[in-house]
């Protein structure tokens, strides 16, 4: 349904490459100023969907609108209003960081003076001032991703597509990227983000659309998706296996389901509802009968669990089934080696 509050709308998007049906009817919408996380394993169709929405590919069926314009009928109007940062840094290796940004700005048809100032601002903001006059060839993987994202922001587009923005980055660079992304949306940008990392969608997205084999298999907030899998579990590790029975009795009174005792009789687990002061209560109860505890933790279901419940396989298992073409591109540019 069209809604003027949506910056991105797709209805029944389909795409096939030869015999392969990459998209089998994708519906999604991203309200203005929010982040939609498109989550799915390699080969699920995320990149294809982003390429259609950013006018790089034509769909075989369905309809999509970005920033109020039909992507098939008015691609140029869409292009004026979007920024795209793909999985593979789309930069000119032989140009400096500054030259890359200025070239992109000129190709957005922005005035020269404005472009120069904007490039300087972005280099500063993305911590690339020192590297700004060096060729991109000399950049690390994290620096390339930052510059690539800066390139997508040159024209201050209201809608941003980020295709796996942190794939291949080390944890520190990834955290830096997350910070930048959060700042962007705080300024009102609408963002569609694809990821195969469940914690990334969990941490950044307002709404999550889970895609598998070219279909949307679930959508909602991270919390809503987790509820589909069930609530939290309390996990306790006892110091001594001889306390298992009495500990199980106490946990049984506190929990909302059956207590599981593992074979070593030291690890116990029980489903629990959300009760205020639960943890302190558990520790006091166990302590009152002199049961010693090595570890105690409340685990909420991860999106991994969600994925397993929804698809019957984990996200990682699908990694081997990615299309040959994508694997080829990864080899050529050495993703992950950076």
């Amino acid at each position, binding site marked *: 349904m069209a809604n003027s509050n949506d910056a991105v709308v797709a209805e029944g998007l389909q795409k096939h490459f030869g015999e392969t049906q990459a998209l089998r009817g994708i519906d999604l919408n991203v309200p203005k100023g929010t982040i939609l996380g498109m989550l799915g394993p390699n080969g699920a169709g995320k990149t294809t969907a982003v390429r259609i929405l950013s006018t790089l590919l034509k769909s075989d069926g369905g309809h999509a609108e970005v920033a109020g314009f*039909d992507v098939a009928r008015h691609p140029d109007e869409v*292009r004026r209003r979007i920024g795209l940062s793909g999985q*593979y840094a789309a930069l*000119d290796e032989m*140009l400096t960081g500054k030259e890359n940004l200025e070239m992109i700005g*000129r190709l957005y048809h922005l005035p020269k003076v404005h472009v120069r100032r904007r490039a300087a601002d972005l280099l500063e903001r993305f911590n690339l001032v020192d590297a700004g006059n060096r060729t991109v060839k000399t950049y690390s993987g994290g620096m390339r991703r930052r510059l690539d994202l800066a390139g997508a922001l040159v024209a201050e587009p209201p809608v941003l597509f980020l295709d796996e923005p942190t794939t291949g980055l080390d944890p520190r660079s990834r955290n830096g990227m997350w910070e930048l992304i959060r700042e962007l949306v705080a300024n009102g940008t609408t963002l569609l983000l694809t990821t195969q990392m469940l914690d990334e969608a969990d941490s950044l997205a307002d709404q999550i659309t889970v895609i598998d084999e070219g279909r949307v298999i679930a959508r909602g907030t991270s919390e809503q998706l987790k509820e589909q899998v069930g609530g939290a579990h309390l996990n306790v590790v006892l110091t001594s296996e001889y306390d298992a029975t009495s500990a199980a009795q106490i946990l049984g009174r506190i929990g909302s389901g059956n207590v599981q005792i593992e074979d070593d009789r030291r690890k116990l687990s029980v489903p629990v509802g959300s009760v205020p002061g639960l943890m302190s209560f558990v520790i006091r109860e166990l302590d009152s009968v002199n049961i010693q505890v090595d570890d105690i933790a409340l685990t909420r279901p991860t999106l991994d669990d969600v994925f397993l419940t929804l698809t019957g396989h984990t996200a990682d298992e699908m990694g081997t089934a990615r299309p040959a073409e994508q694997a080829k591109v990864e080899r050529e540019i050495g993703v992950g080696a950076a």
Partner: protein
Amino acid sequence: MSAITTTNPVASPGIWQRLYWTLADSWTIAVRNLRHIPRNPELLLDVTIQPVIFVLLFRYVFGGAIKVPGTSYVNYLMAGIFVQTVVFSSLSTGIGLSNDLKLGLVDRFRSLPMSRVAVLAGRTMTDLLRGLLAVTVMTVVGLAVGFRPHGSVSGWIAGLGLILLFGFALSWAGVVAGVLMRSPEAVQAGMFVLIFPLTFASSAFVPTSTMPSWLRLFAAHQPFTLVVNAVRSFILGQPVGAAGWQALVWGLGLLVFFVPLSVYLYDRKAV
């Protein structure tokens, strides 16, 4: 689910505005290509060192054994070298574009509100400038080894115009090869086997009258020969005859053929 109706007005730019941005975007891309050159100077080898070697090779090694009617061999040779250089330079257009298409950078270009043709036209514009550089370098080297052209200024302008037109047209052929072939290596090999015989089975280095009749039939009428003959007559101040307009027609014809073809192929590759 109901169809979405677009409510936003679409400003449709006029033809002059579109033309302006096509040229401006092409120039932006050409500037990008030109910036590569000082950082990777071997990109200029094919329009500098390589033709200088050819000039010296033909002037001093083969030239002594080749008799040409009406002028010295070095005077005869230079038109051939000029045209050969800009034609071979279309290889680098193809290779450069093929390299571009391999990179994610082209995806970026496609997502920008820029002219689609600019990625291609920027390449061929770069090539045009390289061609100009090549002719300048060759002329200087030629003069140093005894090249004494007696053409008028207008003759030189006409000759230079033909060289650049033909080179520009063939750089669009390079674009077609760059879009069609899978790798820069394939472009290099594929174009070489086409261009090499064309340049040598022509009047570039020897008069076609010395060739066996079956070869002469082809060599005397193929476009490369017509262009070389016209350029040679223009810069040496000899009567040009029919070769002048024939060369012009070939240059424009190839342009009319290859520009739309390369744009069509490039657009099709996008989907």
